[in-house]
């Protein structure tokens, strides 16, 4: 049982608050840390990995502090976001060096290379590797000592679909074996496919927590905004606002369009064409105006 506890952790860089009073517990299984770019995921992972001191609060692994405690790395495997490795080494030399630094030998390294299916390219220089190959060798270096906690910062970045699938299978297996696996991502689908549990971080704050169904619900239950252009905006607005599925309408004169906010997504998608037909109004444009993940996240934070 390996449990990582983040207790009222904040971290600021000068005036920038990168992580704002986050408390969470990461237990066995696969946890996804989801948030848009700049949310503070890397900062949080760096603190979990003992590479960065929290400005306030504490990070502990089974009760042991993580910061300034190098013995903790017997239990932690880390796959950093940054690309830099010892590019002048071959993949095998790199993983062997990582094994030796743990007091292990070439056998452990070979096993890790086999796990990530990199044996075929192990004798090539890392400088010649593709992004996905680098990622897998980084993974092997994190696995040599059979850690009970695995931290991965944006591990799927730059991977092709096949490599992504392989790594997902591998992480799933690690989770099934009872290891504590935490990975970060800014892509909802990635996290949904893999994580048993999701922690959402937005603008440095802990926005939501739960399994993917709960997070999905939070994301789809939010108000949806649409930009609508029609043959008679005024009449359409009057007819739509009468229905409870519509919570707000704005006439945007500059755009020559309506901005509609719908609270009940399902009902609204049925309502709009019906109302238009009933009033003899032609719909020119109906487009969701804020479907970006960014806006979903900012909604979650405001909630």
């Amino acid at each position, binding site marked *: 049982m390996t449990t990582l506890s983040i207790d009222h952790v904040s971290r600021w*860089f000068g005036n920038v608050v990168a992580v704002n009073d986050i408390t969470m517990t990461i237990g066995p299984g696969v946890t996804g840390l989801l948030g848009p770019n700049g949310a503070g995921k*890397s*900062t949080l992972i*760096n603190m979990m*990995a003992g*590479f*960065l*001191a929290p400005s306030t609060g504490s990070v502990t692994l089974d009760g042991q502090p993580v910061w*300034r405690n*190098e*013995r*903790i*790395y*017997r239990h*932690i495997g*880390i796959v*950093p*976001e*940054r690309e*830099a*490795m*010892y590019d*002048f*080494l071959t993949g095998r030399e790199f993983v062997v*060096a*990582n094994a*030796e*630094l*743990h*007091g292990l030998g070439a056998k452990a390294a070979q096993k890790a290379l086999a796990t990530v299916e990199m044996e075929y390219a192990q004798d090539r220089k890392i400088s010649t590797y593709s992004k996905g190959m680098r990622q897998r060798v980084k993974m092997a*270096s994190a696995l040599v000592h059979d850690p009970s906690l695995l931290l991965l910062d944006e591990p799927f970045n730059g991977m092709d679909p096949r490599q992504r699938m392989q790594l997902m299978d591998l992480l799933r297996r690690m989770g099934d074996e009872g290891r504590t696996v935490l990975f970060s991502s800014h892509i909802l689908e990635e996290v949904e496919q893999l994580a048993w549990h999701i922690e959402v971080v937005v603008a440095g704050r802990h926005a939501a927590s739960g399994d993917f169904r709960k997070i999905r619900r939070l994301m789809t239950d939010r108000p949806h905004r649409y930009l609508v252009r029609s043959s008679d905006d005024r009449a359409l607005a009057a007819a739509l606002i009468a229905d409870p599925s519509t919570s707000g309408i704005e006439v945007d004169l500059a755009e020559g369009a309506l901005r509609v906010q719908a609270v009940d997504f399902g009902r609204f998608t049925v309502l709009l064409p019906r109302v238009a037909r009933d009033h003899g109004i032609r719909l020119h444009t109906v487009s969701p105006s804020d479907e970006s993940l960014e806006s979903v996240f900012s909604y979650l934070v405001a909630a």
Partner: protein
Amino acid sequence: MYDPTVARLTYRALLGRRRALILGALPLLLLVIAAVVRALAGADDQTAVNVLGGFALATMVPIIGVIAGTGAIGPEIDDGSVVYLLSKPLKRPTIIFTKLIVAIAVTMVFSAVPTLLAGLILNGNGQQVAVAYTVAALVASIAYAALFLLLGTVSRHAVVFGLVYALVWEALFGSLVPGARTLSVQQWSLAVAHKVADGDMVTSDVALPTATVLLVMVTVLATWYAGQKLRSLTLAGEE
């Protein structure tokens, strides 16, 4: 205290093709200068002292020290690959001490060996001048490696600061401000060389006991402090 894997990684990074070329350039220049001077002026003890003292010890050794000392850790910290050392159950002072040993060895090889060869070319080690400056280069290698390893640990601009120290402080400021010479690795190593060479062929502004104490102190303190800095080195994301 010494980790062979850390040492191997450091050697390979330091002696990679590009850096090895830079490390080899100055020693080569020294040998060329020595050969030309010998051919033009013949064997002369004072000329040997001028070349070895003025170029080898005053310029070449500190620059090699900067490249090896900062290069033993600075690039790893800059590009973030140091994370693969830091994410291991290794004592931080062990990492520093190992890198110090490597930096010293590389500085010695690339500075003391060419100094000896140049001395032999210049005057065939007359009055022990070649050996004296070789000893000075060996001694200076230790202190420079420690100082510049610390600099590489604490600063992203270690090479620039290192060169400024080596060239401005050691060479220029030292000759203008008398007190500054007491705080000069070059003078400390000259104090040792003075004992080796015959008579007063090689002189230093610092007495040997003072020089020895300062050399040991600087080396030990710089190494200890670098270990402390590495313990609290933070790795944050790129902005």
